[in-house]
């Protein structure tokens, strides 16, 4: 067993590539999803019924299907309508679309829990529309929802492993390559698990720091 771990660590370059690819993919899609989710969440609480219903419908469907399904839909169905994307773009696109739906729903939930007096004070001081959202409402709901947002980031990282099935060289793909070539499946995958654990623990640590911020800058 120890010898096998030696073999795995000998292939550290492959694993490092996969590790960095995973981090890069997750960070990029996390940021994009959050930004898009801000706009989608505004639709979800919009006073225009049609816009709100349509947005909620799309979000509900996206949250009801497995991520792998969405990934395959992007990968197989888009070419049928003449949209040809590289695997990387497919993977990134699927991650962003899927997580935007979840982040938007989380922000919407946090919004309904925000005391209405906050929005009222904003309006009394001349805020309206996007400005009201960006400067008064959004900071407060992000602070309030940071634990749930953090959990969703962890889910995003775990979903990113599915990208291996369309041959994107993420951590799981590279680990699989190594274990298949050198016949050390147990040790390689254990190392991969340890690396995922490191990524998720970092996210959890960040969330705990945010929690401390929330104590000071959040609503009681």
């Amino acid at each position: 067993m120890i010898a096998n771990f030696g073999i795995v660590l000998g292939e550290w370059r492959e694993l490092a590539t996969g590790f960095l690819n995973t981090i890069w993919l997750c960070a990029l899609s996390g940021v994009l999803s959050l930004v898009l989710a801000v706009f989608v969440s505004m639709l979800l609480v919009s006073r225009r019924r049609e816009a709100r219903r349509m947005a909620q419908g799309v979000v509900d469907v996206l949250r009801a299907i497995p991520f792998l399904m969405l990934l395959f839909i992007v990968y197989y169905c888009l070419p049928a309508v003449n949209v040809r994307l590289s695997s990387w773009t497919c993977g990134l696109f699927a991650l962003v679309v899927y997580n935007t739906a979840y982040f938007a729903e989380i922000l919407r939930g946090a919004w309904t829990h925000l005391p209405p007096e906050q929005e009222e004070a904003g309006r009394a001081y001349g805020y309206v529309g996007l400005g009201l959202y960006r400067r008064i409402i959004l900071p407060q709901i992000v602070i309030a929802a940071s634990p749930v947002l953090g959990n969703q980031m962890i889910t995003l990282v775990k979903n990113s492993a599915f990208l291996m099935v369309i041959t994107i060289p993420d951590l799981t793909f590279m680990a699989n390559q190594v274990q298949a070539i050198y016949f050390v499946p147990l040790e390689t995958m254990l190392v991969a698990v340890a690396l995922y654990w490191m990524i998720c623990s970092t996210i959890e640590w960040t969330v705990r720091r945010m929690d401390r911020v929330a104590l000071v800058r959040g609503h009681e």
Partner: protein
Amino acid sequence: MSDPRNPGGLVVEVRGLSKSFGRLRVLRGVNLKIAAGRTLCVLGPSGSGKSTLLRCINFLERPDEGAVFLRGERVGVHCTASGRERAMTDRELARIRTRFGMVFQQFNLWPHLTVLGNVVESPIHVQRRPRGEAVAEAEALLDKIGLSDKRDAYPSRLSGGQRQRVAIARALAMKPEVLLFDEPTSSLDPELVGEVLSVMRDLAREGQTMIVVTHEMGFAREAADEVMFIDEGAVVETAAPERFFGNPETPRVRQFLQRFT
């Protein structure tokens, strides 16, 4: 220079304001006038509609009937050139609201901003004043209310009285034409009421135009230029404080004051 739309030089005028919530009539044909530099206190039992009246003035609630004027300009309703009326959009309302300074019963400071941040937030981002100027003025205001040392603290760390004083500074920072106070001391512990009333008294003395909805009789007696009594949505009596507290006309007012003497 007299404004032809506003010959009396009134800052705020309310005519025939009525508002219902469902089947409950909260305001019935209320009239109100306040000239520059004057302080008007609005008194009345709970549920009489005083808070609703205040919130209709800056259109946080839309009245069902009646008109509100700020220095002769109609609030909440836009009169087109052809003479037709339409309700103001949210954007137009937002612009007018910057000319009111509102202080809430629950303070409603923004918890994610520091004390200084709360005070400069709207001047910078809504009124688009330069940051340097806004910060300098905010610091002067904080100094005036005695909270300079708290400029970088977050609201969660302040007492109720301190928070309300910051809220007053926030309202003043807008350089409003009139200050609207909605029961500013009702949520405070008794020991903290004094510090807030003291700030409000100073403001009244300096000539700020103020409409104060309150239960604090002492403040009304000392600082108000005029006292208005509202009961069940209608104005019962309006008088100078000496007359109101010393020799009220209506029996209803007399009955109300008896509970406080």
